[in-house]
């Protein structure tokens, strides 16, 4: 291995990366959905660490606040409040191992080869905090994607409402399936 | 609310039609008119060029392309903005031909016109020149199409009216065919120009793909057109008994007729392909809706077989197009490639045969030849692609069997002659022996299969397979006699087999079975029927004096000097043909009355309508049997031109009827 790679910085990177990887394996393979949800904590927090390591301070903090602080807690709430899910032992181990394993190994080999063989153009710029630049970009060069993202969120909200409102009504009504319901 | 979508469509149209407004900083050439029609006797006519742009228009040249009978005197010069230049073109009628088509090219610096090949600074505006353009063939093709709409417009519940409308519509192409026969000049040949064609109609259809609307008739197609018109009319008569969805039936029937006519008229490969496919749709429905017990199976089998063949044709069509040489359209515009069958045949065939040209690793010409041949062989149908035919025939209603055997099968051989022989003459010679061998297999295999049939209609169907084999053998001989024989056989088989299918239909209408063993001694009960039956069977087995003999005899005479052993083998087919025909005749018409039919009154003799559908065919069979010259003179020059093209040398003797 290239000795220049063994620096405190890279060690830190590998540490973070392994946290992310191991905990995401946990998310995928944990037999209990509660464990899966908890494993997600490691993944999300590890990614926040990676952002910080790369100098993206704002994104890192936001990742922590929203994903770890918000979404993960929401997921946990959902899991804990839904009475059946916690107890059911769901195993999401897929049976397609004979095809899946060779495919994954081949894909990994390909991507590893891609990652190592390519002369990636490196930026000279040192990683530095850039929250102000980020805000600037949102209102200048990347105004359109910023607005588009808000449109996506709005519509996701409308969609979630459509689906959720309907589900709620279904439950409250409890009409036998197939009967024509005039009250709908 | 309902009309909103229409609004969108309408709103989109201006965008499609949007043309760039005249830019004041550019020259803008306007040519009026872009098509110039000359009277038959010749004379001058004018085209006006006008510069509507803001700066002077440089006209580099005004030249004629492909119009040997035209001349232009006006010199090219620059045009100031707003200036007009009248160009006079004169048509000098040639004694050899009474039609002329050409293009005028105006080379300018107006960039809105397409760039001239090899001259990036010149842009070409074209003017189509036409003298005595004919619309006879268009009428023959499109009147049935109009008739289809007319039939659909007949109010519900008027079934009898539908039939009469269909009959009168189908009569129009027949009358036009008689006119065509009368006006067709048998002396016209390649030497007369226009590639030996008559009644030409030629204009541009899809300029972006150099597709032309090109109709014309020569010795190759004239007899087929007449046959199509005649058989269609007779088939309408044979459809009189249809009671189910009458409007739909006759609409589909007339569409089919338009498609068939189009195939024989079209001289642009793309157009040919369109008609070829258009014909499939009505056939599918005609078999599938109005057919017998296994109609669904037969319809889809027919459709799939034919489509499989025609998609191969489509590929070859595109491949040929992209390998064809640069030429001009009839509008005078330059074209990088062409679909024009005549140009593909006479200007590009050497190009296609060049050994350096390959496709999928094989010789280009050979692989194209095979692709096209499979497409047509399915239609003939040639062994081993014939299996759809017995099914289709058995299940199809009588009139559709008549059309199928009388016209559709001929499209296969016509396609081979027109397209394989025309465009790929070298490959045709390469494949000659194979064709003769397959033809012989067809003759013998068809005859043997016919022997084994219990169903009379299947027997007749296999006899078609056998008879079409004669055409293949005659075509493969590459002699004038063989070619004439093949063409005669195509026409004669069309008339004879139509009679056979009508006769089978007559029997089926009465007995609701076609099983040969269920009949016997019919001649005593239906003497008129028996007479026609005997006549048609004798014609079909090739009795001298009836037309079936002429085709077969010419084929063997033409093929014998070339393929001795094959011809001898093929000729044994005549014996088997005679045998199964006579055997069937004997079992049905002669002998004792089959006692399973206790009630003889279900077998009345031929009605007037049935007789009327049989008489015209019988008359033609008899006439051509004794005196084949009317047909032979009609086709002779066309076949001679084709022969010269394929073999590359002049055939000895202009009218080599009997060697």
């Amino acid at each position, binding site marked *: 291995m290239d000795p220049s790679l063994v620096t405190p910085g890279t060690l830190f990177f590998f540490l973070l990366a392994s946290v992310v990887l191991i905990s995401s394996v946990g998310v995928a393979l944990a037999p209990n959905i509660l464990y899966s949800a908890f494993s997600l904590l490691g993944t999300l927090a590890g990614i926040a660490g990676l952002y910080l390591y790369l100098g993206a301070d704002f994104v890192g903090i936001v990742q922590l606040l929203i994903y770890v602080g918000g979404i993960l807690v929401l997921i946990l709430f959902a899991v804990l409040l839904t009475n059946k899910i916690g107890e059911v032992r769901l195993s999401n181990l897929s049976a397609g191992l004979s095809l899946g394993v060779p495919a994954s190994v081949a894909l990994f080999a390909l991507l590893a080869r891609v990652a190592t063989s390519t002369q990636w153009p490196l930026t000279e710029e040192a990683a530095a905090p850039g929250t102000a630049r980020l805000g600037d970009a949102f209102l200048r060069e990347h105004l359109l994607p910023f607005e588009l993202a808000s449109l996506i969120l709005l519509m996701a909200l409308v969609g979630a409402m459509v689906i959720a409102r309907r589900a709620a009504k279904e439950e409250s009504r409890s009409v036998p399936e197939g009967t024509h319901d005039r009250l709908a | 609310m309902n009309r909103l979508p229409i609004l969108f469509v309408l709103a989109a149209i201006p965008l*499609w039609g949007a043309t760039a407004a005249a830019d004041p900083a550019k020259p803008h050439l306007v040519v009026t008119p872009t098509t110039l029609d000359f009277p038959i006797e010749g004379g001058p006519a004018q085209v006006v060029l006008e510069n509507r742009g803001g700066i002077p228009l440089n006209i580099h040249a005004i030249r004629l392309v492909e119009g040997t009978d035209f001349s232009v005197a006006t010199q090219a010069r620059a045009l100031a903005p707003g200036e007009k230049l009248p160009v006079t073109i004169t048509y000098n009628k040639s004694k050899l031909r009474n039609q002329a088509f050409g293009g005028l090219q105006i080379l300018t610096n107006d960039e809105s016109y397409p760039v001239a090949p090899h001259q990036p600074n010149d842009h070409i505006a074209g003017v189509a020149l036409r003298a005595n353009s004919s619309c006879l063939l268009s009428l023959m093709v499109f009147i049935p199409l109009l008739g289809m709409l007319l039939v659909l417009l007949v109010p519900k519940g008027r079934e009898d009216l539908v039939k009469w409308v269909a009959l009168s519509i189908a009569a129009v192409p027949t009358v036009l065919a008689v006119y065509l026969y009368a006006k067709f000049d048998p002396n016209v040949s390649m030497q007369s120009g226009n590639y030996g064609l008559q009644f030409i109609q030629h204009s541009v259809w899809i300029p972006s793909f150099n597709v032309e609307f090109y109709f014309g008739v020569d010795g190759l197609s004239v007899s087929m057109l007449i046959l199509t018109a005649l058989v269609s009319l007779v088939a309408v008569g044979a459809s009189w008994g249809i009671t189910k969805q009458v409007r739909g039936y006759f609409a589909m029937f007339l569409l089919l007729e338009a498609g068939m006519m189009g195939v024989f008229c079209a001289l642009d490969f793309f157009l040919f392909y369109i008609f070829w496919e258009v014909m499939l749709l009505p056939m599918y429905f005609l078999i599938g809706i109005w057919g017998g017990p296994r109609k669904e199976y037969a319809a889809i089998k027919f459709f799939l077989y034919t489509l499989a063949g025609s998609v191969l044709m489509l590929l070859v069509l595109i491949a040929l197009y992209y390998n064809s040489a640069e030429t001009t359209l009839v509008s005078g515009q330059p074209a990088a490639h062409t679909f024009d069958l005549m140009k593909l045949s006479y200007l590009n065939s050497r190009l296609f045969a060049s050994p350096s040209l390959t496709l999928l690793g094989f010789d280009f010409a050979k692989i194209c030849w095979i692709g096209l041949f499979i497409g047509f062989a399915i239609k003939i149908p040639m062994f081993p692609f014939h299996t759809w035919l017995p099914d289709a025939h058995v299940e199809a209603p009588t009139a559709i069997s008549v059309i199928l055997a009388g016209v559709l099968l001929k499209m296969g051989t016509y396609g081979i002659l027109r397209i394989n022989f025309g465009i790929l003459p070298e490959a045709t010679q390469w494949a000659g022996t194979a064709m003769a061998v397959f033809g012989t297999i067809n003759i013998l295999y068809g005859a043997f299969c016919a022997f084994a049939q219990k169903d009379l209609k299947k027997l007749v169907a296999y006899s078609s397979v056998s008879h079409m084999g004669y055409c293949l053998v005659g075509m493969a001989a590459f002699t004038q006699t063989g070619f004439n024989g093949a063409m005669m056989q195509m026409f004669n088989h069309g008339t004879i087999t139509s009679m056979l299918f009508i006769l089978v239909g007559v029997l089926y209408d009465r007995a609701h079975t076609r099983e040969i063993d269920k009949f016997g001694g019919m001649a005593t009960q239906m003497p008129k029927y028996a007479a026609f039956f005997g006549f048609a069977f004798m014609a079909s087995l090739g009795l001298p004096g009836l037309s079936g003999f002429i085709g077969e005899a010419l084929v063997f005479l033409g093929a014998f000097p070339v393929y001795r052993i094959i011809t001898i083998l093929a000729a044994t087919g005549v014996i088997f043909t005679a045998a199964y025909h006579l055997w069937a005749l004997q079992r049905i018409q002669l002998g004792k009355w089959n006692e399973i039919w206790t009630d003889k009154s279900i077998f009345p003799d031929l009605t007037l309508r049935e007789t009327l559908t049989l008489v015209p065919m019988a008359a033609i069979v008899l006439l051509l049997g004794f005196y084949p010259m009317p047909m032979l003179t009609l086709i002779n020059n066309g076949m001679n031109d084709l022969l010269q093209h394929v073999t590359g040398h002049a055939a000895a003797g202009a009218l080599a009827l009997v060697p």
Partner: protein
Amino acid sequence: MTLDNIASMKYFAPELILSIGILAILTVDLIVGKPDRKRSSLLAMSTLVLALLATLVTSDGVSRGLFGGLIARDPFTDFFKLLFIATTAFVGVAALRSRDTIEYQPGEYQDKESGEFYALTLTAAIGMMLMAAATDLLMAFLSLELVSILSYILAGFKRRDRKSSEASLKYVIYGGVASGVMLYGMSLLYGLAGSTSLSAIHAIKDPPLLTLIAAITLCFAGFGYKIASVPFHMWCPDVYEGAPTPVTAFLSVGPKAAGFALLIRFFHGAIPADVRSVPLILGLIAAATMTLGNLAAINQTNIKRLLAYSSIAHAGYILLGLVAGNDDGQRAILLYLVTYLFMNLGAFLVVMAMSDAGLGEELSEYRGLGKRAAFPALVMAICLFSLTGLPPFAGFFGKFYLFAALLSRGGTFNTALALIGILNSAVSLYYYARILRAMYFEKPTNEAPILEASLHRWNMGIMAAVTMGLWLAWTPLVDFAGASIVQWYPHATQVASLH
């Protein structure tokens, strides 16, 4: 020429108008309180008309980069804008009478969620327009996600239907995976180019072939998922079967066309010209897609599922235009998409009209339809013949241009591919003919005539008329499509990276 944010607004008018329309639909619903599908659809349709006018007015044949080069406004985007507006309009009008999408009860006239339905559909139109316009990976991804998310919601729109919910869920899962894979590919491209702009990617000097191919293939996962090409097609039959029929019709035309727009932009714009293996990969995918689609369609008994497999096969045919990789190929794709819009929408409209009239979606229910509902059966027959590629229907001309573009390139690979394609279209006849056979050759189990809504009749009539008569307007259409192909303009400045 690249415009800044303010100057771009003029050329962004169609999307802006649509956004305002969406908000208007939702707000009016909020104020009035009572959902009414007529009102919502009227609003949606007038928004579309305005967007159409805005497109026509601001379209001048000039290629512009908007918002600093994030998206383009060129004839190519205008072409697709018209296509998407037409698709959305036809589907929107059809949904007005569809019981499948919006709850409709004659007694009380409650149109549950009609406002949301039209708002979501219009947003999908914006998303598709942006997909066709994206000249930056960021925009490509965002617009693709927008369309995807809306598709998930719309696919699950059917009330009380397990199939619809299942479709939605499958769609989400496959979509999530495909997006993830595509993002990975995009990250590789970003790593090579140092920018997300397509022109920057185009300008990569001496790209390492393996990395580039890997990146392209991974990106194709996302695009291939949108156009439903093998091996990213698995969601398609389930979603098409489960989703409400108007949504299925929409998904089978709109997002597919948008996916092809993005593919064209990507392969004609971003990929450096010296990558030789791209036609090979695309060709193999195309061959697999059409073969699998056609073979799998043969045994389907549900008509929507059958049409789903047919639409997979059609994605394969259209990919041939990309394999050709030249202007002719591009033009052929555009032409094919136009013909496909009418013939495929026509077929689905018939299914829609019939299911609204109480007919099921199983093939056996279509027995004797030729007698029971003559006009819809006729429209179906026309559309099916056109899908098969028989002249003189529009589909033939579309297919002809595709195969011609491929064959004009010559070479054994292209010829073999064309042969596979053409044989496939012969195979496709077999299963299309199964519908025809059921409709025309078989006896109906129930002789009662079926009456379709007059709105559906109009809509179907338009589809059938265009499918049948497009050859009459073929030359102007070819010219229009030819003028609309992507022009790659290397002068488009890249988005400045974050200083």
